[in-house]
Structure formats: C-alpha cells, structure tokens
C-alpha cells in the first residue's frame, strides 16, 4: 500500500502467540526508535496493544477485550488509515502543544517565583529599617529608586527568563515528553519550589540589611573622615539589592544568548547610570542624592567591598543548593543536558533511542483519557460545522 500509513509506523499483522507479540513489539520499538502502533482484535492481542506506543483495538467477532485495552478503537480495519492520518496528526500536535505549554508554564512558574523572591528581598529591607526609625514610616531609599526597582532595574531579565529560557532544546523537549509529566509528585514539587524561593528572598533581605547596617554603623566610611548619612546608606543598600537579585537570576538561567547577557548586566549598569545622572540633577530634584555616586560613594573602597560581599553572601546558599542537587539528586533535564553536552547521544545512539521510547511510555497515563475526550469534542464540532467533507461509504478493504 502506498498510503501515509507506511510513513508513520511499522506494523505487524499476525495471529501469533501472546508473548511473542509483546516481545517483538518491544524489539521494534527500542530497536528502531520510532513510534509503534499495534492493531488487534482478540484477547491475545491485548499485551501487544499495551506494549506499543499506540494501541488500536478492533471491536467485533472476538469480543471487546482488545477494545478495552487500547488507546483507540475502531469497528472496521479500513478505518485505520483515517485514524492515522487525521487523528494521528492531531495527537502529535496535541502532545507537542501540551509539552510546549507545560514548558512555558514551568518557566512561568520560574518567573513568578523569581518575582516573589526579588520583591520579598526588597520589601523586607524597608520593613526592617522601620524598626530603626521608631516606626515613623521613613523609607531608607529615595523614592525614585523604589519606583524604578520593578519597572526597569529588575524586570527585563525576568522577561528574558520567561520567553527565552531553554533548559533543553526544543527538539529534545518533544522527544522526551516525560520531562514535563504532570503528576502528584510534581504538584508537591512546585510548592516546594515556591516556598524555597520565598525563603531565599527572606534570607537575602536579612543579609543585605544586617551587613549594610553593621558595616556602615557609625564610624567614618572614608579616609577623609566623613560618616555615612541616610542617603549614602540607602544608596549602598539599594546597589546591593540590584546586584544580588540580578546575579541570582543569572544563576538560574541555563541558556545564555546575547539577549540574556544584555538584560542581566544591563540592568546593573542601568542602575549605576541612573544614580550618576540623577546625582547630576540640581539639588532641588535630587536632594540628598546629589552627586552621591561621584563624590561620596564611588571613591570609597568600602562601598565596592560591601557590594561584592553582599552579592556573594546572598547567592551562596543557592549556588550550594544547585551544586548539591546536581550531584546527588539530578533532575531529568540535568541528565539530558549532560548527555547532549558530552555528545553521548551521538556516541551511543542505541541508548538515546531507548531512553526516548521509555520517556514516551511515561506519558501514557492519562493520555488515553485525554485523547478520548478530545475525540468526543471534535465529533461534536464536526456535526455543527458548515463546511464539511462527505466521504463515500465504500472503501476497499486492505486485508
């Protein structure tokens, strides 16, 4: 037959024994690495139907066992082609969309976690400072710093994380749908992640605040003997926050293009540029921040030392955590990244194909039910649609 059927699968037709069918299907699946489809109508075909990636059962003479065990069921063999061409295509698209949506939602979750983290880190420092101002509501930062924080100084890297992040490439992503499997384990895992990021935010805020207070305390901060006023301490604390949160997002990214570099390091540079330009405005606008970078903070070694210390201290737990996790409890996408990095998929093609087929098997749970629901939905749509195609009843039987 010269139908699209041959383009999509290899298939075996046989009236052979139960075990043999299963083993042969498994061999074909793992050996060729292609998606396998098994079709059968009897009780002896049940094992083979379940072993294959897609199982099709024919209801009829030998009863309904094959139908119960399969992902799709048809009433006559001749409908197989329509099933493959139309529904097979749809299913592939659906899986691809599901995987892509899952991946997007996973990165959206990443972005949301980061958003919580940076705002907790920033907001809590303000809150802690209140304890030192007799709770009068005085903020340690200039109003302009606070305004720009979420608008430009930390927002661009998050966007690049959500849009451009790729922990594995798109083709690998589709080959390993199990990477994005939803299940009861994953649900718990997401809460763990969210709480972990909030804890990180709390820790970061404490480190930034305490280190700045203790370092600047009350002694001179420069060789010329001047002591730090609220403007100097506020600007230093804010510089620490900007460096720390941007460094943090750089650590979470695994895919660096020029865009990521621009957004992350650009955000930090934008802060210094802003501080410089704002300081140049006349004191009527810039008040205590007038010339603060050029005159007070820039030439003070303690300022740069503080920023370096705080940035590293804030990011150290996260760095230790991901190193530990990679070492002892690696996630699937870490292993796959390593396989690609060391080119083991090229060296050991058999292993790569085998793992891909196992990954597909993982998505079988729930797959059948979703396909079923989608077919019912589409059938309803077909009956309502105006532009339809009516096929002739008779088609030659391939057997």
């Amino acid at each position: 037959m010269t139908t699209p059927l041959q383009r999509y699968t290899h298939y075996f037709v046989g009236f052979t024994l139960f075990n043999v069918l299963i083993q042969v299907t498994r061999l074909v699946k793992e050996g060729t690495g292609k998606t396998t489809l098994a079709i059968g109508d009897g009780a002896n075909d049940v094992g083979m139907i379940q072993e294959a990636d897609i199982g099709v059962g024919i209801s009829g003479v030998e009863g309904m066992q094959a139908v119960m065990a399969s992902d799709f069921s048809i009433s006559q063999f001749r409908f197989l082609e329509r099933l493959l061409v139309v529904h097979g295509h749809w299913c592939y698209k659906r899986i691809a969309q599901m995987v892509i949506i899952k991946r997007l939602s996973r990165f959206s979750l990443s972005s949301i976690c980061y958003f919580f983290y940076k705002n907790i880190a920033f907001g809590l420092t303000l809150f802690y400072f209140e304890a030192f101002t007799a709770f009068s509501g005085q903020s340690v930062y200039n109003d302009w710093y606070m305004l720009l924080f979420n608008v430009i100084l930390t927002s661009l890297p998050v966007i690049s994380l959500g849009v451009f992040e790729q922990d594995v490439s798109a083709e690998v992503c589709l080959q390993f749908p199990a990477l994005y499997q939803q299940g009861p384990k994953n649900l718990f895992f997401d809460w763990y992640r969210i709480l972990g990021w909030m804890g990180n935010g709390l820790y970061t805020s404490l480190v930034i605040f305490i280190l700045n207070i203790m370092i600047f305390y009350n002694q001179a901060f420069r060789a010329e003997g001047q002591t730090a006023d609220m403007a100097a301490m506020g600007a230093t604390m804010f510089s620490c926050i900007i460096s720390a949160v941007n460094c943090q997002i750089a650590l979470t990214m695994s895919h660096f293009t020029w865009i990521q570099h621009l957004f992350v390091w650009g955000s930090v540079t934008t802060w210094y540029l802003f501080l410089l330009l704002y300081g140049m405005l006349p004191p009527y606008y810039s008040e205590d921040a007038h010339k603060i970078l050029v005159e007070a903070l820039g030439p003070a070694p303690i300022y740069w030392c503080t920023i370096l210390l705080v940035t590293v201290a804030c990011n150290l737990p996260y760095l230790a955590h991901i190193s530990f996790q990679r070492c002892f409890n690696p996630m699937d996408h870490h292993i796959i990244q390593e396989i690609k990095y060391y080119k083991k998929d090229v060296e050991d093609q058999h292993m790569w194909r085998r793992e891909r087929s196992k990954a597909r098997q993982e998505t079988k749970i729930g797959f059948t039910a979703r396909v079923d629901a989608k077919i019912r939905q589409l059938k309803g749509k077909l009956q309502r649609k105006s532009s339809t195609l009516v096929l002739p009843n008779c088609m030659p039987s391939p057997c």
Partner: protein
Amino acid sequence: MEAVGQAILVLPEGIQSDPNCSGYLPDCFIAVLQSKPDSKFTQQELPACKPILTPKWVVSAFMIIAIVFIPIGIACLLGSRDVVEVVERYETKCIPAANINNKVQYIQNSDANKNCTIQMKIPKRMKKPIYVYYQLDNFYQNHRRYVKSRSDKQLKSSKNENDTSSCKPENLATGGGAIVPCGLIAWSLFNDTYSFSLQKNNQSLAVNKKGIAWKSDKQKRFGKDVYPKNFQGGGLKGGGDLNVSVPLSEQEDLMVWMRTAALPTFRKLYGKIEVDLEANETINVTLQNNYNTYSFNGKKKLVLSTTSWIGGRNDFLGIAYLTVGMICLALAIGFTVVYFVKPRRLGDPTFLSWNRGPGSH
C-alpha cells in the same frame, strides 16, 4: 470507547485534499508544509552559551571565591586595626552634683554654667589628621517628620526666603517673619563645643573646622547669599544659634548636622586636629555641655579617631569577608571529597527518573 465510524470529516491543519485527484481518497491527502520566514530570533536558535554545573565548575567557583575573599578580609581587618579610636561618654559626667536630679531643668537654664572638663587617654600613637566627632545615641534623626522638616529651596537662595511650608512648626518666628533656615533639622542644631589641650604642658591643640562638610553641600545646596534670620525665634529653643553675619555656605556645622543620619546612634564630624598625638598622652578637653539630650535619655560621646583606607574602626567587614571565604573554602573541600568518594558519571542515563524507579524525582 466509541468507534470512529464513517463520518463527515473536517480536515486538520496541514492536510489538504488534492482537488485534481479522484479515486482512493487517502491517496489524495497532501501534507502541506507552511513555511514562514523565520528569523533565528523567533526560532530561538540564537547562538547560545549553555553552561552546566560540572564538578569541576562547582569546586572552581567556590575556590575562586575563597581565594579572592580571604585576602580581602585580611586587608580589611588590618585596615581597621590600624585605626586608633578614643571614645569618651560625658553627658552624665558633666552634670554638676547639685543638679543630678533635675538634669532637664539644669540644661534648659541658660544662666547655668555649662563648662565641663574631661580627660582622654591616647592608647597608641595617632597620626594626623585626627578627626573629632560627637556621637549621639537614641537620637532619631531618621524620623519621617523630622527628615521632611526642611526647605531646600530656602537654603539655596535668599529669593526663596518665604518658602517655609514644609518646615512647620518651625517655619515662622513669633514676630511673623520667616525663619531662615527653617525646619526641625536646623532648629535642633547640636551646639556643644570642645577645646583640646595636652595635659603635660597645657599646649592647646587647634581644631580645624573647615572642610568637614561635603563640597557639593557648600557649593550647591547652601547659598552664598543666604543669611540666618529669626533663627531659634519660634519661641522654644531647640539647639544652637547661628552667626547672622556668616552666609549658610560657610556654616559647615549646620551642613554636617543637616545630613540626616540613618541610625539612632550616629557620629558627626566636628573638626580635625592637625598634629600627631603620642601614645599615653592625656588630653584635657574643655567642653560646653549645652545640648539637651536629657529629655529623651540620649547619650553624648566625644570621639577622637584616625582613619585608614577603609575609614574608621570597624572590624565587621573584615570578619564578614573572612567568614564567607572560609565557608566557600569548606564547601570547595567538601564537594571535592564527595566527588571522589561518591562520583556520579555525567550523562549517565541510569539517573533518569524513569530508570530509577518509583520514589525518584
């Protein structure tokens, strides 16, 4: 499960029916590939750097941090240890015995004698310039209402003399005229004075009161044509007086005071002593105990301090650097040991969750 029977079909995207074809229908289905002009940007195929955290990188990262931080910590600690600092608390000492139970009354009494003498012992040789600070404790210069209470426009130019709305309640004198400079910050100006002399030969030590404020304050924020007017004229005196014949751009004590401090315990620069002081010398300080900190249980301290490249004396920065450096060193060593004892082959598919069995992930 319902069977897909003979039914009307809507062809899915990407598959069309060839209109010229008749006969076996599935043969007439054509897969149509739609090609759009895609850039590398939209296809997310930009050249990328994809670093992964291999054991080599982990250990290197921690080692580099340790190697950078430990020397910086040592340098900061040495810089801080170089600084010699002498602190003397005097607000209780300088109350005469007779007034110990009514301090507030004493301090508010403008006729009372506020002279006081204290001694300061120099522990180590102090090289010039030696900075003189006054330290106040429990004084909330960072209170919101206090910080707001000033008029920068008025400070800058005599034209804006009447711009005192943000300075309430210290905006108008009892006579009705505007107070220059207005506001609570200026009103509460610190006014203790200090003079120093060596005990051994009564030689007085000059205190240089110039150059203690930021240059940008002198040049840009405090006007050359603005003179104090009606200062402390609001009924209640809150602090020191200002010389009406000196323009604000020369009033460095005022400028230093108006830079509101971040914490309730703060020091402000009073002046500089431009001679060296030898170890074990005793300095006699004659001070005027004018400023009222007794109403709010504040403390007053006099500080003599040298500076180093890092500023005044504070071991915290050095200790913090050393701590972080040590932690990183420990982590580097720890990870090295672990990688040798229990190595994981990179890219080993047995670690994939579906190969590890249930309970993984």
